[in-house]
């Protein structure tokens, strides 16, 4: 069970233990909030959680997430939720460079896996894998990086959400920026906006989740202080809405 209201229902139980899930979405679609709630629900159940932030400094991330009533800063203070800045990690590893080669990628994987192993992390979020992969120039290397990372984390029993940024410019890449992320993922959750008469309506859709008989319907979501809430989108509404940004 993810513990996220409505999502477990869509997934008919939750994300299978040890899965690597790609949460792909446009900006402002709620990816970071979903990822953070996934960790909070885990922490509330006593699980050790980790968040690797590459898109914004951890201070800013925590400041933004504090507005949500479901988040409690004590979870960070007590070590149940561990937030790591990727820039700090790069600095530790001597990876302050524009692009990574094979050795750099292996060093990065090893450091993430070591952290997960040391803390005993069972829920992990990397926000975002897109920002991280920008430093890896070869498509093959990106594939190797994600595949190896996912496999090692699964072996450790860690359920991972890889947040992926997609824009209208990446419609042809489907659910990821580099076109390889979705291939290695056990699950794909797509988040975006539908435009209805000039208004944007957030939606979430589970495209794939290995080991579950999940719903594939588009769901409207609301980011409330109590967390993410979902209901199925109106069928007649979906037919009237403009094509959503991630491309259909």
């Amino acid at each position: 069970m993810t513990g996220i209201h409505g999502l477990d229902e869509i997934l008919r139980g939750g994300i299978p233990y040890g899965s690597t899930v790609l949460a792909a979405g446009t900006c402002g679609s709620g990816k970071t909030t979903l990822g953070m709630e996934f960790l909070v629900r885990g922490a509330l159940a006593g699980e050790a959680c980790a968040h690797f932030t590459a898109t914004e400094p951890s201070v800013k991330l925590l400041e933004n997430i504090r507005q949500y009533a479901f988040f409690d800063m004590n979870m960070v203070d007590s070590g149940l939720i561990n937030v790591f800045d990727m820039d700090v990690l790069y600095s530790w590893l001597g990876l302050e460079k524009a692009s990574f080669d094979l050795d750099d990628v292996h060093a990065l994987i090893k450091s993430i896996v070591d952290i997960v192993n040391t803390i005993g992390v069972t829920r992990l979020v990397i926000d975002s894998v897109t920002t991280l992969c920008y430093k890896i120039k070869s498509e093959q290397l990106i594939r190797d990086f994600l595949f190896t990372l996912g496999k090692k984390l699964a072996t450790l029993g860690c359920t991972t959400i890889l947040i992926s940024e997609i824009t209208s410019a990446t419609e042809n890449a489907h659910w990821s920026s580099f076109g390889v992320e979705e291939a290695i993922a056990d699950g794909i959750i797509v988040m975006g906006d539908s435009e209805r008469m000039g208004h944007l309506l957030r939606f979430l859709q589970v495209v794939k989740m290995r080991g579950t008989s999940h719903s594939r319907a588009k769901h409207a979501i609301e980011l409330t202080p109590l967390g993410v809430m979902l209901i199925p989108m109106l069928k007649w509404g979906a037919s009237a809405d403009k094509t959503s940004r991630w491309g259909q």
Partner: protein
Amino acid sequence: MKMFELDQQIAEQLTQVSLGSSIQVRMSATNSFAVTASTMIPLMQMFEMGGVYISASRGAVEIIQAFESIGVDVSGIQFLDLVSSGVLGGTDVPYSNITFVDSPIMLESILLRTLYTLRTVSSARNFVFLDSVNALAIYNDDRMLAEYLHTFINTFRQREVLSVMLNVPDQTPPLVLANLDTYCTDLIDRGQVVLL
């Protein structure tokens, strides 16, 4: 304070409904507040219910002040205002029990905000007032609105929340009206149907 005479027949009819009921309240364009108040006051005062009032016909402030003018305190009711965001400065209001939704076309958002609000209220027994179906019909396609009301009714019935849908029938598309007639469990009829 204005004098207000409660429609006792409505209060009497309300004794027959249960928490899982869905009531269609038909009113006319001229008696809408009298019918609304006659439905809501007994639920609040006799049955000690709380809940959510979704205002699509007028801004929530206007509705709250109309209740205040007859001496009824509605500070325990949470208002979801679908009108005032469309009016520049309309959301700068002195009431803390009002939440704004951008537009009456955001039907799923309205339902999600209502469900969220119900999770935050302290009352054990709750209602959801939808004011009104005909106002939503101004902005929404008939089929979509019919689908929405079907979802709306079933969502609250499943959660044992009394749903009350105010409606001026001669301003409501036939398909939507037919849906209400089919899926609502009760009808309070104070409306006038104009046959063309």
